[in-house]
């Protein structure tokens, strides 16, 4: 079933990575990576600490210039396009950073309005309405709008940051460890929220995470970073892998607990 779906979507590749090499100094982190992300799917990227998950995300959104390789997003090569062309590309994706990265000197509503003000000619009233609508969408109460990020709890900061990353109605959403630092209940709710929004908005989601529960709950496919390279597949496929790290990851105590009900099914 998963195979069929992938085959059907194959026409519409949103992110295309070919021969990516990344590294700092003489240390190589990614060695010749290939990756395709299709429209409408949720792809999870996992890997040990320091395996370069965030580096992969950052090079796709061109915060990092890769040493070698080609990265195309929406068919455009990110290293090549510049200026207005790049802005147009950036409008089509949203990024949720690990710690939220809300602007601390602005209220939550002002944070959400930053991209709206920059890129649209909306009236102030419509921006207020859209900000309130986005907050409602991510499940925050209306009075959050006037609060400053320092007045919010960790889970609320993540939700507010998600609302900001969705401000311009992007087609593609990058999430960098969205559930890290949340308690298990908030993490579950956040997984649920991502799934819901992905369905409602038809998003393509690129998800970097450590959390095996999140992987199981929301992802269609998983890309594992091992030995500077990617192993891609569904959970079921990856559990049969021979690689020691992948084996450990999915059959360790945490992995087994999270995947227990899959066994029975």
């Amino acid at each position, binding site marked *: 079933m998963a195979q069929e779906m992938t085959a059907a979507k194959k026409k519409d590749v949103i992110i295309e990575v070919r021969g990516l090499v990344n590294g700092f100094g003489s240390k190589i982190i990614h060695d010749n990576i290939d990756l395709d992300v299709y429209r409408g799917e949720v792809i999870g990227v996992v890997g040990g600490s320091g395996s370069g998950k965030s580096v992969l995300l950052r090079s796709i959104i061109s915060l990092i210039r890769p040493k070698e390789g080609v990265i195309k997003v929406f068919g455009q090569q990110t290293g090549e396009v510049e200026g207005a062309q790049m*802005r147009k590309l950036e409008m089509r994706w949203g990024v949720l950073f690990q710690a939220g990265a809300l602007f*601390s*000197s602005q209220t939550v509503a002002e944070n959400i309005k930053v991209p709206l003000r*920059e890129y*649209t000619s909306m009236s102030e009233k419509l921006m207020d309405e*859209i900000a309130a609508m986005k907050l*409602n969408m991510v499940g925050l109460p209306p009075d959050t709008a006037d609060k400053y990020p320092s007045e919010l709890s960790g889970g609320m900061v993540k939700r507010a940051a998600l609302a900001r990353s969705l401000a311009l*109605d992007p087609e593609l959403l990058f999430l960098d460890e969205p559930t890290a630092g949340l308690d298990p209940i908030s993490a579950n709710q956040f997984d649920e929220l991502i799934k819901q929004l992905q369905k*409602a908005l038809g998003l393509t989601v690129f998800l970097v995470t450590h959390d095996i529960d999140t992987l199981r709950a929301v992802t269609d496919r998983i890309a594992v970073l091992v030995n500077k390279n990617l192993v891609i597949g569904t959970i079921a496929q990856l559990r049969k892998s021979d690689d020691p790290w992948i084996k450990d990851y999915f059959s360790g105590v945490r992995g087994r607990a999270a995947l227990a009900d899959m066994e029975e099914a």
Partner: protein
Amino acid sequence: MTLIESASAEPEAWFKLDRDNRTLTVGGAWTISESARLDRELNGLDLSGGELAIDGSKISRLDSAGAWLLLRTRRAVEAQGGKVSRFDLPDLYQPLIDNLDQEQAAEKRKPRLPTGFRGRLYKIGRATIHGYRQGVSILGYLGRVTVETGEAIVAPKHNLRVAAIFHQVEETGINALPIVGLLSFLIGVVLAYQGADQLKQFGAEIFTINLLGVGLLREIGGLITAIIVAGRSGSAFTAHIGTMRVNEEIDAMQTMGLNTVDTLVLPRIIGLVISLPLLTFFADIMGLIGGAMMCYVSLDITFPVFLRQLNQAVDVSTLMVGLIKAPVFAFVIALVGCYEGFQVERNAASVGQLTTRSVVEAIFLVIVLDAAFSIMFSVLGI
């Protein structure tokens, strides 16, 4: 500027209100790139008059901004007492509308600040209360630091941190030598030049040296040094301690039982109290050198003549009057710098705000104290 409006190549969004059939037909790509225009046009629409059907079956693309506009239109009809009899959308977009339509709590948000005259009154009141609290709090802080400084001097514990104090002397004193030296040299030059210009009219050029000596040693040397140090070291104190607060380092120190006044504040205060008088003396000398140079250039007064006249104009007490103020200035600058550092809240803007405030307050207090000293000295007849 790049607008998302111009980034879209999709067919335009449109809508048509058929008054006879009571139908609002919408179609095209209802997306964020069209929403500013749609918002304006929809606002001009008269939706009153009972029942209305919304037919969205011709919509080719819908995102959350477009969906919001549709939803808002439906709510506007209902708010005017009408009813939406039909609300058709392509099946693909039904989940989106359902998602957005969940309990939007209707209650109006209260704005943080009242507007107009009441708002201004509110701001004045808030600033007054804030100023009062700030005064009380800094006074309390002064008390605490004074007691602990006294204790540290009377009964020096092993934890009077000598290394930290000398690190501060290096930071605030030795590293400030070039800038303080250069600026006071220039002040000496300016003072001598302006003085000479005026006094020449009376044929009293030689008294330029008196002006220089008394002015620099008593007032300007100390004042200019204190102001430079307030801008340079006072701000550094606030920024450093403030950043430590943002990183929760201060909290960590407290849980380890480290006294923050002992470890952070005292070394800075003692260090600055040592280094500021020395800097002031250095500034006095550099200012006199600058003045002497200017006297030679514009008045042809040679260096030996300059020194002889200076000897008559000032004595040690003039120098001491200037230097005695320096430790007091140093104490105030360090106290304000550290105090504001501890007021920093856990956000990025706070460090910058409080650093600015600490510099302004320190310079303000230095000048006020200088005036107080002047009055005191004139009453005492010094």
